[in-house]
């Protein structure tokens, strides 16, 4: 199968004319820049050794990265492919009165536009389907998409976005998660802003606190963080003549992605093929569909393959980010530094939609007491909607937030009691067979081992 050269000789890169024999093809490079590509490197001993487990085997994909042969979505082109851009909301919270795409559609080079009303099932979300693919009645944060354009180039698509007229009617903007708890402004009426909560209770926390020699109360807060994958979200949709749509996507979970596509497009799963390309970093941010239904429908409208690659700004404002936590920790200890009771209250800023908040609040709450044996524990957590960027899955699902709190307070306790930070952790750490906060018996537990090994490697002198 012959393909067009993907890169020009003048760019001093490989030209592959035949994909079938690409790996063994004689590589033509500009003579002025003779670069030898080692396409037939011998495999390393680690890749050839048995048993395979425990070998530091090199990665086949790493070699392709090094040779520039990895094809990310931005490298993939099809004949007659066009490009989509999404118009983002100008308001953090507003009713949409009207969307007029006629002027954009009339522009030379524009093939089609799309609004939320044209999407068969205009909602998605991994836990609750509370998020529109394109907002058609209300915008709930500045990253909400309100319309999309497919055009001959990204530049024309971007220009066309400026011609789309959206009339908004302002709604009160709610940004403070503690304010959101009061439900004075509702973001998803008639639902409460508190859209998910978690309680963990073990033993008798009040009794444990009453029996403690010292009680520590501290508040810790964390910020919004972006995943910043080096490859932004990208996808290509191609709707074919049999009514079957193929998506090349940077999504990290294609099986469930196809279910979401089936739901939003109202199309049987057998009519959808989802191809997960090599992903240039995920960190949790690429675990749900974003543009894919939009591209599929634009492809259906135009009969052409449609690509969209997020800009860095799209990536920040419209993809999910890490939940900020407000964490109140009250901990009772005895004179020896043994934790007798811990009471935790947490508020998660959930942003405009649920996304992966259910998982984040669950893991955050279960892990919040730390890897410590605590007989009396109470954790209460609430996640609230605000008119800010949607918070979702991000490396650690709430664990970096709660670890910052429980380990900061651990050092506060150690300092007050005059106990070395290593010592106080050893006194409280989970051991093999310890009961977790949910009363699960833990196995293959190595908290103590990791503490001692790290202290040894660091040269930690106990005070």
């Amino acid at each position, binding site marked *: 199968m012959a393909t067009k050269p993907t890169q020009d000789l003048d760019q001093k890169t490989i030209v592959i004319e035949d994909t079938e024999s690409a790996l063994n093809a004689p590589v033509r490079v500009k003579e002025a820049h003779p670069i030898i590509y080692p396409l037939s490197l011998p495999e390393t001993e680690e*890749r*050839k050794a*048995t*048993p*395979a*487990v425990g070998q530091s*085997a*090199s*990665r*086949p*994909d790493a070699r392709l990265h090094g040779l520039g042969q990895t094809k990310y979505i931005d490298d993939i082109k099809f004949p007659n492919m066009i490009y989509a851009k999404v118009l983002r909301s100008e308001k953090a919270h507003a009713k949409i009165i009207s969307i007029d795409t006629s002027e954009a559609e009339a522009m030379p080079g524009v093939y089609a536009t799309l609004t939320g009303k044209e999407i068969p099932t205009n909602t998605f979300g991994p836990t609750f389907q509370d998020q529109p693919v394109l907002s058609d009645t209300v915008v709930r*944060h*500045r990253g909400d998409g309100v319309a999309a354009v497919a055009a001959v180039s990204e530049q024309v698509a971007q220009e066309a976005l400026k011609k789309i007229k959206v009339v908004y009617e302002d709604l009160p903007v709610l940004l403070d998660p503690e304010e959101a708890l009061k439900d004075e402004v509702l973001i998803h009426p008639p639902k409460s802003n508190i859209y998910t909560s978690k*309680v963990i209770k073990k033993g008798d926390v009040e009794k444990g606190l009453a029996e403690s020699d010292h009680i520590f109360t501290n508040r810790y*807060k964390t*910020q919004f963080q*972006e995943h*910043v994958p080096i490859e932004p979200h990208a996808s290509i949709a191609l709707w074919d003549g049999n009514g079957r749509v193929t998506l090349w996507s940077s999504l990290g*979970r*294609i*099986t469930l992605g196809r279910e979401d596509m089936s739901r939003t497009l109202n199309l049987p799963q057998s009519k959808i*093929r*989802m*191809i997960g*390309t090599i*992903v*240039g970093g*995920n960190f949790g941010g690429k675990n749900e569909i974003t543009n894919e239904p939009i591209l599929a429908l634009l492809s259906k409208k135009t009969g052409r393959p449609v690509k969209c690659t997020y800009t860095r*700004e799209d990536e920040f*404002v419209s993809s999910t980010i890490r939940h900020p936590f407000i964490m109140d920790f009250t901990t009772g200890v005895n004179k020896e530094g043994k934790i007798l009771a811990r009471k935790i209250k947490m508020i998660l800023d959930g942003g405009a939609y649920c996304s992966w908040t259910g*998982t984040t609040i*669950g*893991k955050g709450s279960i892990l919040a007491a730390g890897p410590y044996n605590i007989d009396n524990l109470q*954790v209460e957590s609430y996640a609230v909607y605000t008119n*800010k960027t949607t918070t979702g899955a991000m*490396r*650690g*699902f709430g*664990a*970096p937030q709660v*670890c*910052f709190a429980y*380990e*900061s307070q651990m050092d506060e306790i150690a*300092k007050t009691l005059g106990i070395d*930070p290593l010592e106080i*952790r050893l006194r409280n750490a989970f051991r093999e067979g310890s009961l977790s906060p*949910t*009363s*699960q018996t833990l*196995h*293959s*537990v*190595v*908290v103590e*081992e990791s503490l001692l*090994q*790290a202290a040894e*490697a*660091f040269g930690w002198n106990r005070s």
Partner: protein
Amino acid sequence: MKRTGKGMACMWYPIGFTVMANPSAATVKVNTDGTATLLTGTVETGQGALTVLGQIAAETLGIATDDVHVVSGDTDTTPMDTGAIASRTTYVTGNAIVRAAEAARQLLFEAAAPLLNVKPDQLEARDKKIQVLGFPSRFLPISQVAHHAETNVGKPAIGSSSYNPPTVEMDPETGQGKPFNTYVYATQIAEVEVDDETGEVVVKRIVAVHDCGQPINPMLVEGQIQGGISMGVGYALQEEILFDDQGKQINPNLTNYIMPTSLDMPELDVQLVDNYDPTGPHGAKGVGEPTAVPTAAAIMNAIYDAVGVRITTLPATAEKVMAAILEKNAQEA
């Protein structure tokens, strides 16, 4: 004046989804030349998962990493997978692969048994051979067995299976239950230098000792830990998306949202704790997310050790640290 401090943080982290079913399926096909093809519905997201999954299949079949070709990420050709999320790939997808490879291996044992005059359960797959347990000199090359199974016996060595971690639902009132099947543990210790005249924090060194059960590929585990620490350093000191009073992001770009580069990375000493989880594939658990968990906490404790101020709101920017130092000085004066 630049002051140094040290701080530690330990953590625990679960593998897989919270209670919710998160299965993976896999298909392993042994080729007649003794190599194998693994079909998985997960996606390579840069962490090296496909290499690790290939190693898991190779281990069960007694062949080398390079003998296994991994096909992934296509809903038309690969079996379902819950995906590259929740530090679950090595453990959950890996367990599915062990089971699929065992099913394929069983077909090899059944084909080889009559040739070696033993029962199938007297055989093992090691070093590219199907050999008699306790009598390794009685063997057939795996290629010969695979060819025999397909061409003469008529049962090609193809196995499919799935795995879902067993959990127990959490009580809605008390949260009591078994949300995950296994957890990993880790400690990181940071050494920082804090300039008490500017508030600037430089992380000089981090010792990271992580548990991932049996490491399938120690080099890739080390890479994951290094990457996680980099993310943790950014979370601790620099990264923060800011909003104006109308809910608009102020810094949605890499000029104003500052993240660490290689120049900001401390000296790292990455180590693994010796461990083996009998519930994991060849003893493995997972490592993706937990690497980023304790870094910020360790750095905050080190800042406290260096200059005696407790940062309770992340990130610990120079401005915030300086303000805390000035407040502390004012209180002491």
